[in-house]
């Protein structure tokens, strides 16, 4: 009787333009390239996948359900470059079978560096989701599923969430299975949903791999694997990037057909069903506590932070960025603060990763730069200019500058209703 719980991560960073040490203006972002990529991904993934899922949801009349976490920076870009995607997401929201999760608005690593900034960004994202889709998220996922006990404690203390989502990493579970609901160590009410990385990655990474013994993966075969969980689990958490559909796995791999037939195959077994994370949390109590003193994530085989903070450049760039926090916020300048926040996207640090660089793997595929070094140089040049702007601008009213920022978040001026 396992429930299948889908959660799709939907995100595109705001990429920087080529910015040299000789540049002096405050136009940091490559609007042209961002628009191009946004429209491309919309056409290859977001639009066809949204239409497909909308179809399935209507066909199964409430028996097929999914959840999404869409970053604030993507919502802004969709509004600007591809508003039709927003309307299809809205249509999904209207079905009642789709749940939206909360995360940091800027897809940032702020939890690791500034708790104040982290909380502000989560609140800003909750408002954005409410604004676009009329939902107040009750489930939290942190950027890249980065997680430890401290994160759970902060999220619980915010008083807004029922559960938190992270990676079902072997070393935190030991002999235990990710297919149950757990509770974070030190929390009283907050629950923990863990990704079944094996089954998730079968779809997200291995689906089109012809060297994989299980290739080709059919909906029937996959439903069988889910059925195997019967008797030793309550829920199969399939968490993956939404771009899996059509972008990471191209349409011609058959990924859309796979998804089209999966509900039918899963629901063939009367004990199986699809649930949103909130439903899972309501239905199942926690079976055990999970202690995660050290930080985990869903990245690479290491499941740690090394993809973003593994080398000296990455750690230098992010430290310099957060070191500016007070100065930035003291300016009370909305443009400066937003620019600073957009620089917090974890993607900027991922581009600087030298791990596997020489092997030309997945890191390279997602990298708009020719090398990690180019991305660091570009980032530092931008940061340098941002720093200069703070210094040039005398601090305005120094009283309650943080609250000033907070109040801007109430009505994000950059968000307009989708048509």
């Amino acid at each position, binding site marked *: 009787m396992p429930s299948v719980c889908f959660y799709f991560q939907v995100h595109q960073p705001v990429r920087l333009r080529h910015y*040299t*040490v*000789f540049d002096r203006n405050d136009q940091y972002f490559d609007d042209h390239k961002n628009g191009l990529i946004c429209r491309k991904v919309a056409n290859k993934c977001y639009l066809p996948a949204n239409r497909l899922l909308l179809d399935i949801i209507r066909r199964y009349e409430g028996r097929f359900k999914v959840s999404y976490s869409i970053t604030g920076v993507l919502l802004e870009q969709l509004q600007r470059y591809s508003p039709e995607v927003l309307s299809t997401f809205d249509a999904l929201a209207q079905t009642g079978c789709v749940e939206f999760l909360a995360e940091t608005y800027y897809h940032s690593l702020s939890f690791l560096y500034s708790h104040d900034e982290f909380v502000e960004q989560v609140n800003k994202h909750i408002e954005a989701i409410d604004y676009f889709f009329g939902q107040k998220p009750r489930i939290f996922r942190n950027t890249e599923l980065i997680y430890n006990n401290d994160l759970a404690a902060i999220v619980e203390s915010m008083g807004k969430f029922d559960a938190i989502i992270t990676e079902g990493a072997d070393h935190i579970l030991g002999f235990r299975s990710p297919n149950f609901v757990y509770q974070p160590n030190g929390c009283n009410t907050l629950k923990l949903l863990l990704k079944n990385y094996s089954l998730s990655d079968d779809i997200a990474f291995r689906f089109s791999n012809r060297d994989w013994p299980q290739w080709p993966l059919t909906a029937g075969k996959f439903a069988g694997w889910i059925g195997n969980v019967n008797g030793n689990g309550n829920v199969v958490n399939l968490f993956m990037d939404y771009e899996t559909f059509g972008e990471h796995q191209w349409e011609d791999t058959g990924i859309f057909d796979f998804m089209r037939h999966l509900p039918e195959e899963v629901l063939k077994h009367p004990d199986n069903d699809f649930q949103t994370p909130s439903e899972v949390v309501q239905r199942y109590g926690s079976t055990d506590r999970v202690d995660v003193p050290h930080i985990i994530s869903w990245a690479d085989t290491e499941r740690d932070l090394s993809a973003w903070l593994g*080398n*000296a*450049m990455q*750690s*230098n*760039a992010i430290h310099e960025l957060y070191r500016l926090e007070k100065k930035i916020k003291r300016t009370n300048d909305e443009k400066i603060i937003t620019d600073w926040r957009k620089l917090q996207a974890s993607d900027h640090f991922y581009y600087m990763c*030298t791990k596997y*660089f*020489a092997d030309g793997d997945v890191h390279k595929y997602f990298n708009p730069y*020719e*090398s*990690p*070094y*180019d991305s*660091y*140089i570009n980032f*530092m*040049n931008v940061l340098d200019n941002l720093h200069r702007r703070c210094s040039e601008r005398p601090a305005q009213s120094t009283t309650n500058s943080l609250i000033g920022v907070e109040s801007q978040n109430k009505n994000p001026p950059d968000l307009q209703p989708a048509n």
Partner: protein
Amino acid sequence: MLGWEFPPFISGGLGTACYGLTRAMDQLGMEVTFVLPKMVESKYVTHVKLLTPGSKTSASPFKPKDLKNVRFRTISSLLQPYSTPEVYQQRVEDILRQKQKVRRDNAGSASPLVISKDYSNDMYTEVYRYAAMAAELAATEQFDVVHAHDWMTYPAGIAVAAISGKPLVVHVHSTEFDRSGEHVNQMIYDIERQGMEGADKVIAVSHLTRNIVISRYGISGEKVEVVYNGVERNGSWFLSETSIDKDEKIVLFLGRITMQKGPEYFLQAAKKVLELMDNVKFVMAGSGDMMHRAIEMAAGLGIGHKVLFTGFLRGEDVQRIYKMADLYVMPSVSEPFGIAPLEALDNDVPVIISKQSGVSEVLMHALKVDFWDVNEIANKIIAVLKYPPLQMTLRSHGSFEVRKLRWEDSASKCVRIYKEVQAAHLEPAGVV
């Protein structure tokens, strides 16, 4: 092996490559007979002086200690790597003038004022005279494959192969298009083309060069293989601490100061860097036909006091300059391979290399620029000097990466190619 220069007197990448490759072949147990030109006049003595047994014409074989399976044969000739017909002409005239002077001084003694048989009047003739002598020398040697390095030895390679009936491999370290841009010397081009056409296999030092061989010389792609150069690990060099003020950053250009190496882009970038940073010195180590222009240009840009010209460096001086440098820049307009950046990395100096270089095909942990993009070169120079984490990451990954580029691998590839051409010739190994 028809090659060039051996340590300690090496004037550039060609000599380094011949040495590295031959040493690695020696370690693989290949027997190599290494034929190289020997300078005639003491004024122009280089390496060979050290190595020759003193016989004036071609001759007796000798063996440096560390090479067990390599025999050296020298041919008296004025040929030098990186020479041009004009330079050659100049040299011949100098020698004649000197001889005349000697003759006047020793008036009465019987020194004939005729062109010696050790060199010809012009370079083209000399190349063919060298070929004839190589063929003569080859008659006394046993070998299975002929391997010739760069154009001046191609005619010799063709001659030796023709006389012995052994297969010919020509090794393209650079082409006339790299050296002269679009102003190619037709006679040199013709010699290069004949060499490539006459060869059973052509080895190019990079895909960049392979493409030139195919598109500009009309050689069929199947015949052209890429064998990357390696780098010789130096191990630890114990140098006395230099007394440089480390508040001053040093950006290094090391190579021949010729059109091909892009010295003017280095200087233009230096000018831009100095607009934003003051505590930087730019060192140009090397000599070449653009050296005077480069000095004038530095002065013209108003950065003369920030640019130091060291002239040609060798041996320990090279190590010393690497030790002082914070960054190595190679803005080559056209660089078939480029061994110097590997040596810089081997000495823990991060590098900026031009995308128009063969070495950029093998180096990932290097900063890459278009040679003409002076703004970007300056941008990257400043970044390296300004952000220690960048320098640190480049250095640590770079020196690791460079360790993987070994001459043994290059030599093994050559051996495989030898076997292929031999099989095609249906013959059994040894190399001239």
